[in-house]
């Protein structure tokens, strides 16, 4: 025992406490969920032995995977997944963002009205919001407007939270209601349609057209998953970018520090208020970008767009292991969470279950993910 009092520090290192990356658990969960659906497909008599993700019969894509379904799953989660990237950062600071769905709605309306084309089949655009000055603007204008709207809405969230110290739940709840109001007021509830071809091409074009990646160009992941699926490409690129930012930059480190111990962050000289403004502003901007992709894909904007996307985005993050207590979670986790989310939704369709069952189960999954997180935290607290 004399040894412990001498060896200042004398920190025993217990190998069993070494952090096993949580992302591995989430990936295992993803695989298990796929297996459950596959098993159900084999067992339920009306499924006639269909497989969800595999296609052994035709092999028409050069793989044994059912690429059509995988493509749909990825595309389905891409746009909300982009929102979830921002929500992840917000939750890591210990906050919450309930406004992203409404920001999508408001941004959709506003950016679309700067993306309209003057003539539709030779006739004036019947849905025109502004006069001729706002028609056929360069593509950069609606993009800048869309990102700007998201940025402003997010900054307002951030400033309310950082400088008035009201709980993030309240601040973003206010934004959720107000931004939806803006979306409805903007065109008095009318849909806004007929964008320029360039705008429609943001989501519906093919970013990879003409690009080559050497030997990689012909690989199935490029030709089958991302070719002609722009939202999926943007999701992947943004996920890589923010993974890098959260892990290797000062911005990321301070975001984790605030969620981990806000007082410690403040005492260490981190400008906590400004950091929060940045995090919420980036989350808003990502919601704005999601709105651009969504309106481009649908070639129309409606005031109801993005309804309850915020909850889906939060669910993706929480399923992906982002702790609602703050400080823990990762972009990779959220991407995996988005995949789990997509597989479950798609799995219900595959099992031919009605949409209302999907919603019931979706709620259950969110609660289960939070329960799991609480349980993990308690276990961690007991260990230390």
């Amino acid at each position, binding site marked *: 025992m004399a040894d*412990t*009092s*001498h*060896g*200042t*520090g*004398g*920190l*025993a*290192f*217990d190998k069993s*406490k*070494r*952090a096993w990356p949580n992302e591995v658990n989430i990936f295992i969960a993803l695989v298990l969920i796929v297996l459950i659906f596959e098993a159900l497909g084999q067992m339920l008599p009306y499924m006639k032995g269909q497989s969800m993700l595999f296609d052994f019969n035709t092999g028409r894509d050069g793989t044994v995977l059912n690429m059509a379904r995988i493509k749909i799953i990825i595309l389905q989660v891409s746009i909300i997944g982009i929102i979830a990237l921002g929500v992840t950062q917000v939750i890591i600071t210990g906050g919450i963002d309930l406004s992203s769905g409404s920001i999508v709605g408001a941004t959709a309306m506003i950016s679309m009205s700067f993306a309209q084309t003057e003539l539709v089949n030779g006739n004036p655009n019947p849905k025109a919001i502004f006069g001729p000055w706002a028609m056929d603007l360069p593509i950069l204008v609606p993009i800048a407007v869309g990102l700007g709207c998201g940025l402003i809405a997010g900054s307002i969230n951030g400033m309310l939270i950082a400088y008035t110290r009201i709980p993030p739940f309240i601040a973003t709840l206010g934004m959720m209601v107000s931004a939806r109001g803006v979306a409805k007021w903007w065109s008095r509830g009318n849909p806004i349609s007929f964008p320029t071809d360039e705008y429609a091409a943001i989501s519906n074009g093919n970013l990879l057209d003409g690009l080559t990646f050497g030997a990689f160009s012909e690989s199935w992941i490029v030709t089958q998953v991302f070719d002609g699926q722009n939202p999926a490409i943007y999701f992947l690129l943004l996920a890589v970018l923010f993974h890098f*930012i959260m892990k*290797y*930059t*000062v*911005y990321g*480190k301070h975001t*984790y*520090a605030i*969620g*981990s*111990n806000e*007082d*410690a*962050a403040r*005492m*260490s*000289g*981190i400008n906590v208020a400004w950091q929060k403004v*940045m995090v919420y502003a980036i989350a808003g901007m990502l919601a704005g970008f999601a709105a651009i992709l969504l309106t481009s894909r649908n070639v129309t904007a409606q005031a109801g767009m993005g309804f309850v996307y915020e909850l889906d985005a939060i669910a993706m993050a929480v399923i992906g292991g982002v702790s609602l207590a703050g*400080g*823990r979670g990762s972009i990779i986790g959220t991407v995996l969470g988005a995949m789990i989310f997509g597989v479950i939704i798609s799995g219900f369709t595959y099992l031919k279950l009605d949409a209302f069952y999907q919603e019931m189960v979706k709620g259950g999954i969110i609660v289960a993910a939070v329960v799991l997180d609480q349980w993990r935290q308690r276990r*961690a607290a007991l*260990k*230390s």
Partner: protein
Amino acid sequence: MSDDIVLRTEDLTKHYGGVHALEGADFELKNGEHVAIMGDNGAGKSTFVRQITGVEQRTRGRIWLYGDEVNFAGPLDAREAGIETVFQTLALADDLDVPDNLFLGREMTKWNWLGPFRMLDYKGMRDATVAGLERTAVKIPNIRNTIRNMSGGQRQCVAIARTATFHSRLTIMDEPTAALGVQETAQVENIVRQLKEAGEPLILISHNMRQVMDLVDRIIVFRRGRIVANLDRNETDGQDVVAYITGAKTGTEYEGAA
């Protein structure tokens, strides 16, 4: 003013509204000296430290560090000037590892033109952490372990290891062992002795009489916001100090202070 005075305060005062938490504190710390600050709860010990470290802005008074008058706008300023504080509430982020915590708020970075998105120099920070830990003889087998997975004593050691890593010119510890067990307290006290041997000046706030008598050269007693005694450790004992803390006695040079 000579350079062997590390810290000097004159008429340091802090009022919270009508509450006079700290009143006219004159204080001096010599190079290599370890001084304890004692006093009852609410006597102004932590308030005193918060004024020195820039966590709060003083109502009036002046502070000199190594002969230069200083006015810290915030804790980071104080840190940059070389004052390292181990706070009563551990200022550690549980989900980050040891180098992250040591460098929190003053990360080593590359590509600084990227502004808030400048790159962290993980390798540089790890190397500096290992060097700093060696200097204080704090042993941490895996510095990449998160703070959450460490015991109270280990956490306190990490907080103290900051001092060594940054070549601080003055270390302040605010009740570093209040929440620790016997063995962990012994570990922390050993680190304090290391600092003494290395000639690092230290201000220790503590309620633990045995610890104070073991570790420091001089004891300053606060009562009701004022300094009421300045005692040499060799010329006093526990009972004497308690008398000052409780108000049974007041130092001759502080007559009428409280």
